[in-house]
């Protein structure tokens, strides 16, 4: 980073918002993919659009790579810094600029925390639907970059499906606006919102985002079913789907994940090979009728124990173990890697058998927790980072799982994104020509390849491996890797 660039930054930012000392930059060296770290040259903390735009233009002019960063909860290393690059920290742009319950929309800045939108909308009977498990800390800007999901994606989609309009600064400093307050989004002309969301920070920075809010369901009905066989839990999901019901969430945990959850949050789960959670939501009269049907299906599915949540407290108890499963696994093992590949729902059983075989082959433990409704796996590969070569072995196993997902007709990522972590697996999913076209598009928007350089596409310099262990926030149970 040259002196003239730094001086230009000093003209935009006061000293307390331009960080260059090692000790100030330490918090930015890593994200939730804790195995890696890189030291950026500097970090700036803008407080308005103009400062972001000026910074991006400056980066473009000086060809300095930058990473826009919210809370740094990316599981794919999507917000890992670039060596000698700039971090643009967006947490101070955290205003909800407009909340219009009548039209069910909110206009927000990129640094707004996901959950705070639902909290602001709650008095009006509304909420913001995408619910990544880090929602109490992750920002909308990061959700947009990675098209974040959550447990409720099957019915209402991922982040992209909830963004109606945006104002963005492209990586070359061009400011552009698309979409608006209509639920149709862009409506006339190509869906630029859909293209920008999920671009992993490679196109530029979202400055202002118009979001769609949803009415809170009148009633949730939740059932927990225990099985003595993982395949049987998977079959139950197929039976639910075949019945024509459309649950808001369907989640499965295997024995190891159940054991971890029990040890950690003591949810009182049955001792089982697999647990299935199914939740229906909507208008009370309809949901109660659907629940009767669901209960019949679960009874026929061979579950040895069925628990129905009869109160909000019991519902919370069912979810407590599921939501705490990831941080709980951290108690069983000093380190773990989590993948989020997707397989067609009908091939879930096959995928689990294969993962079981890979587990044997690598002699590593794998806990399985997954969004069964949309085939989104979350295998947690347990290893001890203090053992030489253990991380490499765990990564090799993770790679085989990704290849398996592609071979079964799925995807290498359902909601975490490619980031730094999975970039070398892109060729497994896309042809050379498809990758070439995506890269050409990236260069058409960012000719100097400065925006989040080193992410999504194979190759590029590798960040340094960090010491082992969980992210401090993960240890505290604030975030989890799902």
């Amino acid at each position, binding site marked *: 980073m040259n002196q003239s660039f730094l001086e230009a930054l000093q003209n935009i930012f006061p000293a307390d918002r331009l960080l260059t000392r090692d000790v100030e930059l330490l918090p930015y060296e890593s994200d939730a993919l804790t195995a890696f770290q890189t030291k950026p040259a500097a970090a700036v903390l803008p407080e308005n659009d103009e400062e972001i735009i000026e910074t991006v233009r400056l980066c473009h002019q000086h060809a300095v790579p930058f990473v826009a960063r919210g809370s740094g909860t990316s599981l794919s290393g999507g917000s890992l810094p670039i060596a000698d690059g700039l971090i643009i920290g967006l947490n101070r742009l955290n205003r909800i600029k407009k909340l219009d319950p009548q*039209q069910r929309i909110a206009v927000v800045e990129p640094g707004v925390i996901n959950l705070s939108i639902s909290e602001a909308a709650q008095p009006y009977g509304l909420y913001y639907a995408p619910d990544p498990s880090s929602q109490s800390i992750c920002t909308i800007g990061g959700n947009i970059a990675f098209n974040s999901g959550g447990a409720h994606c099957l019915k209402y989609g991922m982040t992209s499906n909830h963004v109606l309009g945006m104002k963005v600064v492209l990586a070359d400093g061009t400011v552009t606006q698309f979409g608006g307050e209509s639920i149709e989004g862009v*409506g*006339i*002309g190509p869906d630029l919102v859909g293209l920008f969301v999920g671009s992993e920070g490679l196109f530029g920075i979202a400055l202002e985002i118009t979001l769609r809010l949803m009415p809170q369901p009148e009633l949730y009905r939740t059932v927990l079913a225990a099985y003595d066989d993982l395949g049987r839990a998977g079959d139950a999901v197929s039976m639910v789907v075949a019945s024509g019901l459309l649950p808001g969430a369907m989640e499965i945990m295997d024995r190891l994940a159940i054991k971890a959850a029990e040890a950690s949050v003591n949810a009182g789960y049955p001792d089982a090979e697999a647990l299935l959670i199914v939740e229906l939501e909507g208008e009370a009269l309809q949901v109660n009728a659907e629940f009767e049907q669901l209960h019949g299906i679960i009874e026929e599915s061979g579950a040895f124990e069925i628990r129905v949540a009869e109160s909000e407290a019991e519902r919370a108890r069912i979810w407590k173990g599921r939501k705490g499963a990831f941080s709980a696994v951290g108690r069983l093992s000093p380190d773990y890697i989590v993948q989020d590949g*997707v397989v*067609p729902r009908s091939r879930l059983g096959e995928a689990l058998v294969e993962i079981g075989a890979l587990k044997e082959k690598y002699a590593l433990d794998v806990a399985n927790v997954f969004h069964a409704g949309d085939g989104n796996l979350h295998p947690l590969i347990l290893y001890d980072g203090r053992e030489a070569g253990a991380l490499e072995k765990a990564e090799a196993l993770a790679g085989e799982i990704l290849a398996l997902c592609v071979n079964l007709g799925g995807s290498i990522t359902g909601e975490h994104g490619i980031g730094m972590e999975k970039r070398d697996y892109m060729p497994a999913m896309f042809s050379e020509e498809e990758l070439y076209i995506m890269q050409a598009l990236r260069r058409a928007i960012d000719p100097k390849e400065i925006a989040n350089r080193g992410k*999504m596409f194979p190759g590029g310099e590798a960040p340094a491996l960090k010491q082992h262990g969980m992210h401090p926030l993960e240890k505290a149970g604030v975030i989890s890797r799902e």
Partner: protein
Amino acid sequence: MRGSAPGSIAEIQSLVLNSDRVHVVGLGSKTALHHQTDGAAIVDLAEMSGILEYQPSEYTVTVGAGSPVRDLAAALKQHGQYLPCDPLLPGAASIGGTVACNLAGPRRFRYGGVRDFILGAQLVDGMGRAFRVGGKVVKNAAGFDLSKFLVGSLGRYAIMTELTFKVFPDAPCFRSLRFSYARLEDALSAIYFINQSAYELDALDLIPAAGGWSLLARLAGFEETLPRRVERFAASMERETAPADIDKLPETDDLWDPLADLSGEVLVKVALAPKQIPAFDRMIHAARRRYGVGGNLAWLAADDVEALAAALRKCGLRGLCLRGAVDSPVIGAPADDALAQRVKQVLDPHHKFV
């Protein structure tokens, strides 16, 4: 308009490579799109049709882009499923044309529009390259989401040959209600009430009527619960929004066809927000019109397209002409197309697609 109807991706690639100008047509149901073709080679997608992959248990279906919407709807219906974005012109349009023009019907209100249900596509771009975008599973976050970009792209960036969608189980039964209001403001207030309530409507359209405005609402679900849900909804609407009348309507084909009563020189789709309706409606009240999807879309039939375009510009809105003799199908306020131009540069640098 009939051009060559290639039956394979390779034929489409060679057509693109051997032509200076290319114009794509599906089943030709949106006639306004096909007036200014500048002597381009016409690529007719009628042969690129059929259901290619459909596993009801996956909630996904892959079809040839030239497939009639009605064929897809019929195949899904056999398994109790439907495409929740509810393609417009279900009797005449192709699925590719539905995506290219982004045309969703009234049931879009419940779960979302075309952009919310497209998962992936097979394309041939202006360089003659054939490639895939997106995926074939319901959840996928790998790579740039060019499949969503196709929605509304009007065939100007690439030719779609194959499309994959997410589909849902459909409801077995429906009930429709009409709430009548004297003033537009009252009808809009009723929409705002519904927006903040937990009633899950299948569709909600706002229609000018003799002596005021009608709000047409539909509930979907099980036969055994619908009557009670309808009573509960109607009672709450009566209490909170004071309609002049409430009528239960029979489920006829025309009731939910937003274009059924719209005739004029041009037929136009406009995307707008409910709160933009009062100002816009004052300017265009000579047009026959219907505001769909809870007031987020306008369907207009007008005789004076210039006056309509001027009104749209004044309100900062844009419209897509579906039928009528127009120079360009897109009218109204200019678009900020900085990002779209970058895509054009990559997919169709020689501006072959018109």
